[in-house]
């Protein structure tokens, strides 16, 4: 299984924190970031940055906590840089 980094976007930082804490309880540690405007069609979104293999767990927790995922985006391979290209569309529900 490939393990590329992805961004899972949520509408609110409160929601991101809720999911992050649930992941921590399962010993999964992920990073929170502001969703780049070039990726998110919606304003002021925040995202969890994790490996793709964690996506099913994130989805399960989001469902349990009644939090909607706004989008899942592959992170462009730019080395340490975090510059994002223009939106190529979400892999996920919008």
């Amino acid at each position, binding site marked *: 299984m490939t393990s590329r980094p992805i961004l899972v976007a949520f509408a*609110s*930082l*409160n929601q991101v924190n*809720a999911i992050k804490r649930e992941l921590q309880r399962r010993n999964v540690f992920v990073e929170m970031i502001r969703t780049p405007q070039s990726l998110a069609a919606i*304003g002021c979104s925040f995202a969890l940055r994790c490996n793709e293999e964690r996506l099913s767990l994130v989805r399960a927790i989001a469902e349990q906590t009644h939090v909607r995922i706004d989008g899942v985006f592959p992170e462009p391979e730019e080395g340490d840089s975090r510059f994002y290209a223009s939106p190529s569309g979400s892999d996920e529900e919008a």
Partner: protein
Amino acid sequence: MIYLDQAATSWPKPRNVAAAVRKTLLQPSGNIGRSSYKVALQMSEVVYECRENLARLFHAHDPLRICFTSNATEALNLALRGFLKPGDHVVCSSMEHNAVWRPLVAMARRGIDFSVAQTNSSGILSIDNVLSEIRPNTRLITVLHASNVNGAVQPIAEIGTAARRRGIAFLVDASQSAGAVPIHVEQMKIDLLAFPGHKALLGPQGTGGLYVREGIDLTPLREGGTGSESQASHVPDFMPDHLESGTLNLPGIAGLNESVRFILDRGVDAIAEHESCLGTQLREGLERVRGVQLYGPPSGSPCAAVVSFNIGDLDPVAVADELDRRFGIACRPGLHCAWLAHQTLGSTPGGSVRFSLGPFTSRRHIQTAIRAVRHAARRRYP
């Protein structure tokens, strides 16, 4: 000073509270939900941790159902004004604080009726008196959990169960009970729980909150920036953003997080037991002072550590002043923003002298307070 005014605001606070407030003010914390640099994201974790700790304290399943307010009054106004619509009817108790009574009176002018379920003369509500006030259009029952005047604790679980069975929402004003009396929102069938951060939760002033059960929809009191869905012309429909427009009191919430953590570590049951023992000691001591009239519930009734009394016809303000000047006792005389409750207890128009205790109150404080009241009473009853 002997501080017996915990029902107005608690003091002292646990040590870590001031440290957390100080840290938030002295170090950059950003503004959560707006900025996304490291410290702003770290601060958002503190705020979420506070929601989690509050949810744990109240046995609420979902921390996102807790929104922050600046005090319990704001939380109560949000619950009442956000939930009720013209044509609705509300039942409250005759022990309510002005934070509920005044909004209800104001809302009655725009077609939201309310009825007052009478308590007994000790301030304790019976379920029958609540049920007898219910009408076909009753949409909400609101009850003060523990009285800020005499500590009477209402049968919340019983009222909540009756309300849920009838499809009526149940709002609990936990201004005196949150942190001092065990609260279980699921078991007690509480739909809305309003609480201050600065009283028995031992946090800073300017903090408070409202628990909103899933399925209860409130219209926000404020609309504005939430740091989410900024492209939309309306506030988000999800909690807590729906009710939290504007910048939160981050230093206050950081302090509240520490105080709630302290309470969780110590245990609400242990705090309640400590305060109950001291409250009993105080009531029994005051009962033996000639001329003292107590307004508390009968011994053995559920009661928070709030004790109200008068010495004959002495002005309660003059008594409190004497206790302060001669004994360094800080307490609150008067009506305690609760005219309705004082009417119920028969202590209008002057009100009473109120001692209210906390987790840091000691037996020595109680002994000194009883001695001081005895001294004050001797002037009137030599």
